[in-house]
């Protein structure tokens, strides 16, 4: 089974702190994603990566950065956490085998509270 793990289930940080959220997948997937989930808004894509050291902005990248130094690991960084970044963060990974064979596998999520 594909496994996507996230370093923390719950995290509480103070405004202005630098926050690292870590994600690891064990299935040699090329693609990795960070989403933010908020009630009534569904999931919104923050950043994604299709290869080591490659990254692209998603729909809401402001206030975030990412790092992918190894294929299995994708980190989300909040340079200076703010209260409006309090949310559930979900990591996902995928591998495109063909034009009709792919799906994204999700981690359990990290609920981040910024006070």
């Amino acid at each position: 089974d594909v496994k996507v793990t996230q370093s923390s289930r719950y995290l509480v940080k103070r405004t202005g702190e630098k926050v690292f959220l870590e994600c690891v997948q064990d299935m040699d997937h090329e693609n990795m994603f960070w989403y933010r989930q908020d009630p009534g808004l569904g999931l919104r894509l923050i950043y994604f990566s299709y290869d080591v050291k490659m990254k692209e902005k998603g729909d809401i990248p402001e206030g975030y950065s990412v790092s992918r130094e190894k294929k299995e690991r994708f980190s989300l960084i909040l340079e200076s956490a703010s209260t409006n970044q309090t949310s559930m963060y979900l990591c996902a990974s995928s591998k495109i085998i063909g034009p009709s064979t792919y799906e994204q596998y999700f981690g359990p999520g990290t609920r981040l509270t910024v006070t």
Partner: protein
Amino acid sequence: AQSVTQPDIHITVSEGASLELRCNYSYGATPYLFWYVQSPGQGLQLLLKYFSGDTLVQGIKGFEAEFKRSQSSFNLRKPSVHWSDAAEYFCAVGYLSYNTDKLIFGTGTRLQVFP
């Protein structure tokens, strides 16, 4: 622009009753369509996906969905709901871009099941 609409924010059904969750999409080409389920405190699990072929798709846990191009819909159904089906359900449209797959999610439908 691609978008997904889930018109029902919250649905309540009795255990054993049938279920239909609505999903409408907007996408210029042939869509790739997905249904995910999120149990409380968990990540997302794929229920089923549609890429092409038979418009009635069978998934896990007894769920099925029907793709109707004329109505731009991909509604999720289950003939008899179990209490363990209480969760949040997300519809998504997928496409390929930047050498990776992208998903656009709806805002979700929360299902409550009464005994």
